[in-house]
């Protein structure tokens, strides 16, 4: 029985370094190629050596699909394409292709700051890698090769995020990447066809969480920022270049406008312009409200948010600053943090997850005395807040997506094992489908119900109709029922080789010419007789009429007696018989 195999090399019962291998209908597809920011060595990248025998990924993989621009989904891409040497097709949506290099550059900068880093890619590698990317449009079926096709669906989560439907023959898999089932300030909700895939591979970050409404979190965020500003404090929001930073900017901009606040809001390193550019460029990927209001007012042209200069950090009075990088690893956000940490009126809001070792992680865990360079100690007196603004589907959202797509099996990835276990039980109970949660390196094998092609005689079909039995509808898949599919597809699915049945016949002919001349005469004769047929005189000494091959040899006894060998496939049976009869009559005189 045909099988689909799913093997996570990353994101199997964990978050970080998403990289999932899917083998379907003889095709190998890699879904995402992320990095784990918690490691400084090769462990940050997926280990591809497990899946290739000769180290040549290009020979093994049919394509790589990147779901969105977050580094845990695309961070290892330049490593894979420029350092490991994968040279096959890479797919991602247009916005992801445009924004990916910015995030990769952002992270490269952090890496350069560290010491002892090895095996990291350069700017040129990022560019060379992006040049190989084939952009995807939503809902457009892309034919990777004759058998494999992919189709992208809107996933919400971040600008350009996509779910992808992968189809080989009648087998299919949907990979969600990260997705969000509720619209937010700038993006819409994920959506997919009722495509009934054999497997739905879904993220499960918030597998056990029913998240409070985003509005509540936003209100809370604004309240905290406002309070801090009111008491004359400064607010630092460490962010990555693009993504949730823009969402928070819209939020603050609207709030400032409404409350008529005067405290300055700054955004570091010129990213507002860049973000503005990308959001304008990909306005169709944002939510309906932004698209509607765009004509009157571009939500990303901020009145209150100004570019930051490092000297502003020392200005007296309240202010809000968005600064990179997001985990307070290094650079500007860390520099500002050091300046402001000593004042309890100030506040730092961490809008996302921070890996171990970063200052962001330490302060979120409640460390109040930080050892800095040169044995100096930094007293953290400022207020530390954590507010996750990441847009993932919660348990309710995941169930909603299952209802939408109606998969036959579920595979959970990108989440914690304990939480997945809970959701798995819930899914199996509610939908009566198998749900798997493979660990990294473990393979889930799902047997599919292949479509079996049947050639059926007209009589049999009529008899079946007379008995009132249902006739198979080729468009509608039925389990355990015979289906009509092409014979090529059937052979592939059944793993069988096609046998060619050929007929042969010998015809004797009197022609006092050399063998090549006789053949040429036959060619000329057939050309004149068979109008509209493909007739070729091939260099290997044969004449071909459609599938019929004609060869000439002389009889051993009499060189003027030619033996014509005709061979044809059963499809051309009629033409074959016609030709043998025709040639038996001999060649007309006057042929040259």
């Amino acid at each position: 029985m045909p099988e689909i195999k799913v093997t996570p090399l990353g994101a199997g019962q964990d978050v970080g370094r998403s990289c999932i291998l899917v083998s379907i209908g003889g095709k190998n597809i890699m879904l995402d190629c992320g990095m784990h920011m918690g490691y400084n060595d090769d462990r940050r990248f997926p280990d591809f050596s497990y899946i290739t025998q000769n180290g040549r990924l290009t020979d093994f993989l049919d394509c790589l699909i990147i779901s969105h621009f977050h580094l845990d989904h695309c961070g290892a891409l330049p490593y894979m394409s420029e350092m490991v040497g994968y040279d096959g097709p890479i797919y991602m949506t247009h916005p992801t292709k445009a924004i990916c290099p910015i995030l990769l550059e952002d992270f490269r900068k952090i890496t350069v700051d560290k010491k002892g880093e090895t095996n990291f890619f350069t700017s040129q590698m990022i560019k060379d890698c992006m040049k190989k990317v084939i952009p995807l449009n939503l809902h457009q079926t892309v034919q990777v090769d004759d058998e494999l096709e992919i189709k992208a669906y809107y996933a919400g989560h971040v600008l350009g995020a996509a779910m992808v439907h992968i189809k080989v023959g009648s087998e299919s898999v949907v990979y969600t990447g990260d997705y969000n089932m509720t619209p937010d300030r700038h993006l819409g909700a994920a959506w997919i066809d009722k495509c009934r895939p054999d497997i739905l591979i879904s993220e499960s970050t918030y597998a056990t969480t029913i998240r409070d409404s985003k509005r509540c979190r936003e209100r809370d965020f604004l309240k905290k920022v406002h309070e801090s500003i009111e008491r004359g404090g400064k607010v630092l929001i460490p962010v990555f270049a693009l993504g949730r930073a823009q969402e928070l900017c819209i939020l603050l901009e609207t709030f400032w406008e409404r409350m008529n606040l005067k405290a300055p809001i700054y955004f570091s390193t010129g990213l507002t312009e860049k973000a503005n550019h990308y959001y304008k460029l990909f306005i169709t990927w944002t939510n309906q409200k932004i698209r509607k209001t765009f004509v009157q007012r571009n939500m990303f042209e901020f009145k209150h948010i100004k570019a930051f200069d490092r000297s502003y950090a020392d200005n007296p009075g309240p202010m809000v600053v968005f600064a990179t990088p997001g985990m307070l690893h290094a650079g500007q956000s860390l520099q500002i943090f050091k300046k402001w940490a000593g004042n309890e009126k100030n506040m730092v809001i961490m809008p996302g997850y921070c890996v171990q070792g970063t200052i962001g992680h330490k302060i979120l865990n409640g460390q109040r005395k930080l050892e800095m360079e040169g044995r100096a100690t930094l007293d953290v007196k400022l207020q530390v807040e954590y507010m996750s603004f990441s847009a993932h589907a919660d348990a309710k959202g995941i169930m909603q997506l299952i209802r939408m797509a109606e998969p036959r099996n579920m595979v959970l990835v990108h989440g914690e094992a304990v939480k997945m276990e809970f959701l798995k039980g819930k899914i199996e109970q509610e939908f009566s489908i198998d749900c798997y949660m493979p660990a990294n390196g473990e393979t889930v094998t799902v047997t599919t119900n292949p479509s079996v092609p049947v050639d059926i005689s007209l009589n049999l079909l009529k008899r079946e109709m007379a008995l009132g039995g249902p006739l198979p509808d080729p468009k509608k898949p039925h389990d355990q029922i015979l289906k009509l599919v092409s014979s090529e597809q059937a052979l592939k699915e059944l793993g069988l080789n096609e046998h060619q049945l050929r007929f042969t016949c010998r015809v004797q002919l009197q022609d006092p010419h050399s063998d090549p001349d006789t053949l040429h005469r036959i060619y000329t004769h057939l050309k004149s007789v068979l109008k509209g047929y493909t007739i070729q005189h091939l260099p290997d000494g044969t004449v071909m009429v459609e599938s019929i091959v004609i060869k000439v040899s002389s009889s051993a006894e009499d060189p003027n007696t030619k033996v014509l060998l005709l061979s044809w496939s059963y499809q051309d049976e009629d033409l074959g018989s016609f030709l043998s009869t025709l040639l038996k009559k001999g060649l007309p005189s006057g042929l040259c």
Partner: protein
Amino acid sequence: MDADCVLLLPGVCQVLLDSGRSLPDDTTLEKLLDWLTGITEADKEGSLLEVHPCLLEFISFVVCKTSSDPSVISFTLKLCGLMGATEDGFKRLQESSVLDLAFSRQHWHEAGLWEDPCIRIGWIQGLRSMLLHSKALSFFVQADLTAQLLQLQTDTSLFVASAANQMLAHILLFFQPVMSAGCNTIGKKHWEDKRTQASIIGPGVTMDTSEDYDAVLAVTSKYLQESLVPKENTQFHQSLQTLKLLGLLLAQARPPLRDQLLQTAADPLEEVVTAGCSQLTLPLMDVVLAAYSSSTGEGVPDQHVARLLSSMLTMSKPADLIQAAAALLSRGHPDSVHAAQAVRILLLPLDLITGQALLGTNTAADKHRFSMVDQLKSKTSCISMICVCLTNTPQISLMPADLLPCPSASIVTAVLSLLRICSGDSSSSPAGCPEVFRNVISSGKVQKSALEALTGLSSSPGVKGMLIEVLAVLIEYLNHPDSDPIVLHKSYQAVVQWLSVCVDLSFTTDKLQQDLVEVVKKRVCDMRWEVRDSTVEFLGKLAGVLVSAKVAPDTSEVLLGGCCSASLLREALQDPESYVRASAISALAQTLAHSWQQGAAPTQQQTDIVSRLLEILSQDTEGFARRAVVQYFIAWFSSRSSSTSRSPSTSTCSTSPLLMNSVSTVLSLGSADLDWEVKVHTLELAELLLDEAFLGHRGYRKGSDTHLALPHPYAVVSDQTCTLHTHNRKRTEGMDSDLAIRLKTLVEQGVFSVLLSGLVDCDRPVSLKACQLLIKFRETVCPVSIEAPEETVAEVSCELPGWGWGQDISKTLGMTMSDQAKVADIAANGAHVFDSEDCKENVNKGGDSVCVRVCEVLRSLGLDAKLDILIQSSDHVHNSPLSLLQDILTAGAAHSHPDTQPGQEVIVDCY
């Protein structure tokens, strides 16, 4: 171990015992193990268990209390193995009855944990770490773990299965007996090397070890014999894994072991070869080649192995055959007969498709011809086989002529024919296989492979004369309306490569040159930025190739289309895609390099380019383009310096005011840029100015100073800078007398300001580079070893702005000088202010600006201490073991006293 860490370790063990789920993140345990492994390796003598009893308690507790988190148990098993790697540690673990339990599969099975792959991984890796001495081997054998390990070889987890294989190979190779007579010396040496590598193993092989070893070998051999041949379709996985194990073993096994393995595996291997299982071809070839090369190492190849290798090269399925032949070539050809055979097999698809008769007219020898033709008719296998064939052609063409069935030129012709067929033109292949043509027509995969092969074939012997033919096909590809960006990119690469090898452009024709120019003109306006970028990059590379090949300027201009190249690049400066703008700037630098080197006065066109570049530097929203601008000026400045050194007569032309004015602007814009790489490049430009000003002066050292930080592996190093550093310019006399003048010039040019602003930059690579340059500066103008600098030098002053970096520097100065009890000298704003004619005017205008003496600033900034900090990584404190232990403790405390508000739980989501 650091004393602070010693204090924290018991607490950390306690946190891990309490609950693994409170760990900071999923990397914590691995990082903890890395640290403990490092300590174990560094301290070969002592046992960590003895010094830190908490570790033994921890291990015992976790092993007994199976309720811990699986990740903690897995960590504990690995730790247990690590601790047992020394005989002392092993003894302690055994005395505490920990080992039997820790490595009892039954124990974990009963606890319902064995199903978790992380437990199995921990189990294998723990054993792997421990098995470095005979006692551990005895334990392994007595506990009958070989069979269990063999079972894991076919585990559902790729990671477990692979680790089990590695582990089995480790045991058999690490403890393999030394060859008796003859090879004894080599064997002993190897064994000693192994011991030195492991360094923590106890006494060597004893009689007991030998018995234990034999026991492991016997079980493994039996397993190999039984599982090599797949009995049913479902057993492919087991055969595959067993082949991988055998491959690992044969690659390093020495005679006694190798012979035994071969004896055991010979018959099953032959059976596998005969069975012709496609899925097993590659690992099988690995095994056969490993066996073959290890046997040839002894002198005469084993006849049996040679036969196997021959069988592999006569397999019935063409796809398997191609794979086997490719594997043979890629792993180094063992002998000329097999190599020649592999070459024929690999060239066969190309021969058949294109009809180029690569294998000569006597094709009867290629008995696979017909089956190969049949396979080529299927699209999937055709593409896959032809790609393998193409990948290997460059290597084949470089092989000795007696191994090749045809000259390299014929291979090039065949690849060119294939490229033509791919683009729908089969006229050049009348003898080709028309039924196969449709499979390769428009196949991007084949086109890419063929173009790569063509690029690789450029260095083959005797192919230079084919340049015209090659260029014609490549230009056709560049012109083809359906070519995808990657195909175009690879076509450009091939053109550059062929032109760099065949620099004699008389090989080309006017028509070809004209066609190339036309196609470039077309592609530079392509809708796709990827194509525009590749085209612009191509122009730059082509200029680079022609300059480095010292082709006469007029020839290169013809090929580049005269001034067309520069004008196309100027157009590209306006490109909406920043990558293209950046490539255009770099390409312009390469294109103009020749005229810079000649020291010619800048033309109006060059002046326009400079204004445009300065505009980009000040206004472009993307860093790539701005980085390229600074690098452009670095290249220009370097060329000018090198041309001055070569030909002093041209120096007047080359020190054009245009360049010098631009450099000042670049310094001021670049140092205020938002992008860290622009700033680093600006500092490199400043370094060139320093080099020029001080070169030859006593105390000034060019390039990286040895006492300074070692270059960072990712530090941005300009090629041009490196080039300049290799020049030997001789300026010796009279340098001291005008030092003050030159110092003043540098201040006026803004070099000093660039260095100071860089020093207080928030990005470490910038401040590190600035600090290194400032120290160099200081050592030249006012070395610390000299009590006071010359008066004229000491008088030179500069202006510190009252904002931004100026403020930061003032603060630093204030702090340092107050430390030195020079408070009286310090003005209210923290800088050492004085009345100087040099910057009086500016100060009056600027209001907040202050004047400071350069030498005083250089001596008071505490540069050496700052450098010590900067050469550390930005995360050196927070990635330290102490930081890790503190994080574990803090996370543990937070977990046990949850006072966080609801909704405050930090969920690992995404980044």
